[in-house]
């Protein structure tokens, strides 16, 4: 599973992109975020406040209850500020 980080999530985790293999009980986005927190202090800090983290799966905006499957591209980013 590919994880992408954007804006200050990338700065805090220290990575733009990583390949991860979460355990079988990580079945949705919310569980994935909890699991990712354990990867490093930077991940933990980046994901401390989930009210300012948005998620996309396969380039569509999703909520925390969105189910995951092998091969998904998951992106984590702050609320968007384009335009």
């Amino acid at each position, binding site marked *: 599973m590919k994880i992408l980080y954007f*804006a200050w999530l990338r700065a805090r985790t220290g990575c733009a992109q990583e390949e991860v293999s979460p355990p079988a009980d990580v079945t949705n986005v919310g569980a994935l975020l909890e699991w990712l927190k354990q990867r490093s202090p930077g991940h933990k800090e980046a994901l401390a406040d989930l009210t300012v983290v948005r998620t*996309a799966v396969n*380039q*569509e905006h999703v909520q925390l209850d969105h189910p995951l499957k092998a091969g998904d591209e998951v*992106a984590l980013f*702050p609320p*968007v500020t*384009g*335009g």
Partner: protein
Amino acid sequence: MIRVQREDFDTGAELQKLTAGNTQIGGVTCFVGVVRDMAGGSHIGAMTLEHYPGMTEKQLMAIEAEARRRWPLDATLIIHRYGRLDPGDRIVMCAAASSHREASFEACHFLIDYLKTKAPFWKLEDTEKGAKWVAAEARDNKAAARWLEK
């Protein structure tokens, strides 16, 4: 049509292309967003727009398709830049052409409001206090919420 690009665009030439050859069009409304040099009271030197290649195009196309579903439009255009931009630089343009003036206004307004909350762009501003990620504004969510279908 949608485009995501580093380079500047020529608003007039884009509008000209958009309406050329279609004499059903009665009007085109266009919004151009420009980099301001003041935000939240801090002076901004420049900013860098980051985006999520692939998802950006997908979202912009979805927003455009939704506008065309909702209003009788002859042509639509969204151009969004990324990379480093200075105050006064164009960031984005949205345009909607229709035989009906109201439809062109509403659709153009919808395009920019939806883009602001759905297109994966993030602004990193150079301020007097250093580089700072711009926080999303509640009023942008409110502006987009007005278009929710009842």
